[in-house]
């Protein structure tokens, strides 16, 4: 699952940012390397929520600086979804 989550997220970031998938590393800086702005950040969040059927807390988004953090966040959300408390 982990690899496909990563691929999906990189694909979404590529779609929104205009960067090719092979240019995006999990430790790329979203703002400095991939020219992320507030509109694109929201577009990515919306696309991820739609793709994985999860919800991302609004206050978490500004803290994210690298794709790696998005992957962790999505994986955590997916795990929680599978194991309802």
């Amino acid at each position, binding site marked *: 699952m982990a690899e496909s989550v990563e691929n999906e997220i990189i694909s979404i970031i590529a*779609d929104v940012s*205009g960067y090719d998938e092979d240019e995006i590393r999990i430790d790329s800086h979203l703002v400095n390397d991939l020219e992320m*702005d507030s*509109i694109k*950040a929201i*577009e990515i969040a919306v696309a991820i929520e739609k793709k994985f059927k999860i919800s991302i807390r*609004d206050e978490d*988004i*500004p803290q994210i600086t690298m794709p790696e953090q998005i992957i962790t966040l999505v994986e955590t959300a997916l795990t929680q979804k599978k194991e309802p408390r």
Partner: protein
Amino acid sequence: MGVPLKSCYDAVIIGAGISGLTCGCFLAKEGMSVLLMDQHHRPGGCCTSFSRNGYTFDAAAHSFGSYREGGNMRLVLEALDMAGKIEIRRFTPSDIILSPDYQITFWSGKDKTVQELQQFFPDEADNILRFIGRLTDSKPLDFVALRSMTYKDLLDLYFTDDKLKAILSIAVFGNGALPPSLISAFTGAKIFTEFILDGGYYPDGSMQALPDALAERFEELGGELQLSCLVKKIRTDANSVRGVVLEKGVSIRAKYVVASCDARQTIFKLLGRKVVNSEVLHEIDDLIPSLSTFILYLGIDRPFKSLPKPGTNIWFLPYYDLDKGYEAAKKGRLESIGYMVRLSPDCRTILGFVNAPFRSRLYWEKRKAAHMESFIARIEEQIIPGLSEHIVHKEAATPQTLYRYTLNYRGAAYGWATFPGQLFTPVLRQAAHIKGLHLTGHWTAQTQGIPGVAYLGLNTAKLIMHREKIVN
């Protein structure tokens, strides 16, 4: 009808509004061959001016913001070396709010505006400081945290006084056509910081000077501008864009097509339902456009004492319930809602704006004259005594007029309505996943006004340059 000089370009751009012009300039600057077309006979889209009886009127956009050091508009114009082509002045104060109890001025300096608000609302003094501080000190990505909230939710976090909340909302309502309970906090906050706290900029001459200067720069950079040139179809093949078809079947090939025009028209008419996948069609079919605007244009014989300062937007707020105002606007009860009026920087013309619904041509033909007279009477009674004695030219634009000149869906003044749940979808800018096709302008994201669409134009150019492996 404008006829392109060649049959093949690297990129064609549909719509010479500010977003299309900006995108075109940046692409041409990188050496791409670019054709920019507009159905109108002058560039600018919502940012044009027209002349009548010796008076020059700004048709819709009448000033802009984000021109501070580091502001998006300044960054765009500086990157295009526009310094010698256009003189931009800031008119201050940019906005004054007149309500039943207050006259409150938004000054060009943040501190002075904070003091002004604190003077009228001493019980909210600390909250005013915290609110404006948050909006002006936040980093761009911090605004992302506002994405699910309405502007009302945001105001409620800081204030208890409903009158103050309405005063901080009237210009947001005017510039976004939604009341605080419906407009997204992201858009409301952006309008407040970029249009109000950093607003009031105006190019020497008229607003037309801005698109004219961009068009001149575009042509200097090797771009080709064709006006009175209507695009009928965007051609695609195997999910890639191939070019466009103009009137009389003229076919133009291009590797990239940028639609800087109404997104509904792009998807449903220029591309067609067969080309776009059904998921995207449904998503766009469900989106609601913003309200339109009724605009009053007055030419006056001479300056007179009761006129407001030139270049200052005067907002008249008849009551504090903006939800009520929005419902009245949707029903076309223009005489009962708040409005904005301004004296032009050349002190010769007056513009009045009030939110209005899209209705049939017949509806507006029947009501236009009466709305115009009642609007003049309201301005005379509430803001400019003696106005009617000085009017030598008067006319008005209805939502149908806006539609006719811009072909924007339902004459929408601000693209899609900026509800929190609407628009933050990559579907619009990613152009339905058709390779080589990009959408830009106020129909593609929750950003508005001239700086917003200029920024999107630059952004779209960057996406294309990136695809072309042009590094700059």
